[in-house]
């Protein structure tokens, strides 16, 4: 694959295949060293700039005036998309709309969720088979995050597989041979059911007293209530993917990481207080959201290259997190890495992940509960990954618990 890319002289890191094959590391290492600000002249989504170094990613992400997220320019994915949640808006609208929903993950709300998350995590771990192979992705990562998602959405927990399905439809890469959908039209019709279901819940919650679930908070927020139908739907979609895929993938990535670096598991076991930092490090190591795209609003000089107004600019978070000038031994998981929290996986700047603390809390609790049970987990081989350049998503990870 690398040879073929060199032959045509194009380093196109937007090819989903390299994430499925898990062969992206040398390509980004080369970009960071030789072409940190790189114009990729052709890809399936047209030309785009690749930003691969940590400092340049921070530079782009913290300059929303020069690098727009607006749906009017095509939004935040390499392929132009039509969604219009605050994620695809610029200030002042972005600031205003985002403010409306911060209560969902406010410290108060998180504190209310903590014991419930712990209880669920414990139950899921207790239900795992002993001395028998199982799929960590299905039985732990998906099971736990979908339960969490059902709770966040106040959606019937026994129907949580539907949430997983909708999330998969929303993030599916149409070129993925295993994609549940084939066309954009199929995506939209597949999501109709999700939007209508959530809309109904949302309307119902307006009549009830406010509680801390997402739908209730959104139902009682004046700013959200006055938004358009499409915008509210996009917001549901954002919480669906944000609250599901990312944490799911980090739960799988952590299990694989500890299996690759058993000394790190022993270190955590010896000092469970490291669990919070370990959660941040797992998120860095996994980087569940591979990139975010911006569109240049004016001519910008970056790394001695000139980015023209209107150009697509892709910040490869996955590469920023492997930048050796910031993270020593970046391909290694280190639970006590002093600057683990400086990772780019949540983004940097005004669009930084709103659910960062919730994600960290879920991961921390999962590993704390594994420790509390003294589970002896054996991972039987590397994970398989989804065909996607947007989400780094393990699709299966065979495991066994001894004992």
């Amino acid at each position, binding site marked *: 694959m690398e040879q073929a890319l060199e032959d045509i002289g194009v380093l196109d890191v937007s090819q989903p295949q390299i994430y499925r094959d898990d062969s992206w590391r040398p390509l980004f290492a080369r970009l960071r060293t030789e072409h940190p600000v790189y114009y990729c002249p052709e890809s399936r989504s047209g030309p785009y700039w690749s930003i691969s170094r940590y400092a340049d990613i921070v530079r782009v992400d913290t300059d929303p005036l020069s690098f727009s997220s607006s749906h009017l320019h095509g939004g935040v994915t390499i392929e132009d998309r039509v969604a219009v949640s605050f994620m695809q808006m610029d200030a002042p609208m*972005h600031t205003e709309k985002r403010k409306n929903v911060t209560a969902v993950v406010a410290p108060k709300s998180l504190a209310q969720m903590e014991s419930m998350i712990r209880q669920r995590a414990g139950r899921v771990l207790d239900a795992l088979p002993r001395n028998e192979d199982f799929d960590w992705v299905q039985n732990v990562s998906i099971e736990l995050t979908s339960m969490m998602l059902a709770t966040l959405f106040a959606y019937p927990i026994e129907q949580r597989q539907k949430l997983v399905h909708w999330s998969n439809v929303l993030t599916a890469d149409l070129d993925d041979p295993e994609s549940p959908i084939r066309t954009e039209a199929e995506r939209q019709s597949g999501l109709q059911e999700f939007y209508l279901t959530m809309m109904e819940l949302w309307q119902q919650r307006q009549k009830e007293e406010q509680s801390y679930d997402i739908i209730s908070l959104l139902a009682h927020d004046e700013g959200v209530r006055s938004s358009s139908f499409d915008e509210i739907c996009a917001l549901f979609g954002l919480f669906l993917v944000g609250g599901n895929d990312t944490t799911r993938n980090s739960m799988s990535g952590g299990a694989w990481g500890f299996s690759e670096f058993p000394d790190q598991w022993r270190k955590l076991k010896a000092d469970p207080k490291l669990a919070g930092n370990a959660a941040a490090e797992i998120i860095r190591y996994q980087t569940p959201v591979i990139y975010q795209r911006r569109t240049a609003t004016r001519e910008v000089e970056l790394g001695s290259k000139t980015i023209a107004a209107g150009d697509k600019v892709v910040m490869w978070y996955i590469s920023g997190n492997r930048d050796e000038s910031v993270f020593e031994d970046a391909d290694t998981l280190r639970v006590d890495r002093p600057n683990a929290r400086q990772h780019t996986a949540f983004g940097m700047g005004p669009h930084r992940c709103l659910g960062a603390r919730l994600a960290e809390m879920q991961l921390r609790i999962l590993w704390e509960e594994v420790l509390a049970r003294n589970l002896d987990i054996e991972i039987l081989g590397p994970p398989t990954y989804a065909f996607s350049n947007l989400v780094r998503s393990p699709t299966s990870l065979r495991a066994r618990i001894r004992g």
Partner: protein
Amino acid sequence: MQIIFRQAKAGECVVTAEAGDNLMHVALANDIAGIPGDCGGQCACGTCHVYINADWVERIGSVMPGSTEEAMIFGAPVDARPNSRLACQISLTPMCDGLIVEIPEEQ
């Protein structure tokens, strides 16, 4: 000079700082609870949110309307108040001696 950090749970903590120091780095160097400062001081994560004590607001200055700092403050899941600032955006001057900073309960 002395800087006073106050937090509901942790109580009051008085630390020594130098003119030219960055308020977030002072907090981190002294292990002040409640200021994680995830991004390390790049005005990029909003997790060094502090409330400047009312007596000090005028001297320290309010957040600039339309600035990245303002967007980070409003966008974080911590209550934004008129005296909210990001500690990483405050460089200490000799007249900051005795500055009182309140820390949100969690962030």
